[in-house]
């Protein structure tokens, strides 16, 4: 994770576009300016960033399902539950699955686990649209390589 750059996942551990599932690994950094304010003397991974981590995980799954032709954008967060504290240095396993694919939108369920225990979960809605510009797509392709997105799932057309 690189919180200041919103890089909230480290590595795709497993992705199955046909089964509509993904598993991602991420380690909360031991130090970050964010922890200086959240909170002094009691550093915690902010809940909004946990939600963002679940959104990014879901987003990579949707990108794979959409053949790397469209970009998902988070539109709604429902039933988000922060079940326990997440602290610096903890290893997160993030699971997401698509529960509905509509026309131009999709709904996922995601959860984050630490040591096999669910620490938060949410239902997320995304709108998706063609990549708004080549720069963004290029950035996403570079990010895909960094996190182990399967090369064969990147459509270079």
């Amino acid at each position, binding site marked *: 994770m690189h919180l200041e750059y919103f890089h909230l996942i480290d590595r795709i551990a497993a992705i199955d576009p046909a089964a509509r599932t993904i598993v991602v690994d991420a380690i909360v950094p031991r130090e970050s300016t964010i922890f200086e304010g959240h909170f002094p003397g009691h550093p915690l991974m902010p809940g909004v960033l946990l939600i963002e981590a679940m959104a990014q995980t879901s987003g990579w799954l949707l990108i794979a399902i959409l053949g790397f032709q469209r970009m998902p954008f988070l*539109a*709604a967060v429902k039933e988000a539950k922060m079940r326990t504290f997440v602290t610096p240095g903890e290893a997160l396993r993030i699971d997401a699955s698509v529960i*509905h*694919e*509509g*026309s*131009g*939108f999709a*709904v996922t369920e995601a959860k984050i686990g630490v040591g096999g225990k669910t620490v938060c979960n949410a239902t997320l*809605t995304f*709108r998706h649209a063609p990549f708004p510009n080549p720069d963004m797509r290029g950035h996403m392709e570079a990010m895909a390589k960094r996190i182990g997105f399967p090369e064969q799932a990147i459509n270079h057309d």
Partner: protein
Amino acid sequence: MSSTFDEIASIIAETCDIPRETITPESHAIDDLGIDSLDFLDIAFAIDKAFGIKLPLEKWTQEVNDGKATTEQYFVLKNLAARIDELVAAKGA
């Protein structure tokens, strides 16, 4: 068995917290009921699940934007119900 209109009216009432009695077949989802595009995603999700279809929202939006259709054709509820009936029939054909 409830009609298609009754079912979508119930979905809209529950999803958007709109009194059911104010929703009529002549209601325009956007202009009369004030449903925005994000709320309509929730409605589409519920309709897709309830009827086992996929509302072609992107196609409809494109047609409206291109001037090939009016919002009334898709978002006045009696017309929306008719479109849903067509999609259900096409699925079963």
